[in-house]
């Protein structure tokens, strides 16, 4: 006589344990899957950046290349729109900390 088939409580416990085990495996598999996905995505980003930075192996100046030198979206710099900007009469202007002049 098989205890497992005969004892419904034990059978239920074993069933629950199996389900729990499966759940853990699925969780681990999911975490591993996401990790692999993130790793792939990160690798893709790194490759993308490397590809842009280094260009072709032979960087002949006469060959064409993507024009990414200027950030054409106008990002990366800003002025304080709330602060006043002064011209000519600098009496009331904040004292400048530097000068951008012809060098």
């Amino acid at each position, binding site marked *: 006589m098989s205890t497992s088939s005969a004892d419904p409580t034990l059978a239920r416990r074993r069933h629950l344990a199996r389900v729990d085990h499966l759940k853990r495996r699925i969780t681990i598999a999911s975490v591993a899957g996401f990790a692999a996905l993130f790793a792939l995505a990160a690798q893709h980003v790194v490759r993308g950046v490397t590809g842009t930075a280094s260009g072709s192996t032979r960087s002949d100046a006469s060959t064409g290349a993507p024009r990414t030198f200027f950030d054409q979206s106008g990002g990366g710099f800003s002025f304080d729109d709330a602060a006043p900007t002064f011209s000519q009469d600098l009496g009331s*202007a904040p004292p400048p900390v*530097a000068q*951008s002049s012809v060098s």
Partner: protein
Amino acid sequence: MGTRVHVLLPERHQAAVLAVRELFANWELRLSRFLPDSELSRLNARAGQPVAVSRLLFRVAGVAVEAARATEGAFDPVLGSQQVRIGYDRSFDEMPRVGPAAKAPATAGGAWRDAVLDEPSRTITLPQGCALDLGGIAKGMAVDAAIDLLGSRGVDGALVSAGGDLAVWGAPPDGGAWPVLVGTRPGVQVVPLVRGALATSGIARRTWRQGTAARHHIVDPRTGEPVESDLYEVTVAAATCTTAEAGATAAFVLGPRRGADFLRRNGLAGRLTRLDGTRVLVGPWPSPLPEAA
């Protein structure tokens, strides 16, 4: 680089200034066309053959060529021979303000298209008779490198200026923006720079006479002669000092109308001042308050 470097940063980070000083000294030693033993001078002396160069020179030359391509040649880093022809053959402080007339006819630029930068061997081959002049772009890149260096050392607010080409990192001690004086009198302006960089190109300085000809240091690649324009100076705001410098030089070469169009197309802000004092503001360049009566 024939220029003064200023660094503003919190006093507690004072030691970082030494690192910035070292950075600029190193770049100067390698990239100056006025030092006969610099790596750049050795490269220029061997134009026509491939020359193995340091990572720094290869990188700066690569960015310079990239800038030339992005500006369709308005910014041209291979005008060293043209600069020598018009008398700019040594550091400006050592130059006579009046010199003999040019001996050779002018030659147009554009040789950057024939320069070969070979990445695997890290060699540069310049067309024969041509010379790289990395002056402006190297200065801009050095400013950016200094800002990166300060950021990596935990400095939370800094301004680095090399002869007026400048970039900021973080906020000034009292918060807000960095007030920066732009232009030369008459017509100066104080602008509140929050982030990014400013660079100015113009003829307020570095002018001299060669024979009977008035000279300045911004050469037009189309003619090989100093730019003839009704512009006096151009200041450009950009994400980096490298791009601001290339943008300002290109806009000056292109002149007021085409220069302003060029800045607009490339998402830059600028202030173009003509010889007569009138100005064109481009992009999000701040408008000055009405002048006092």
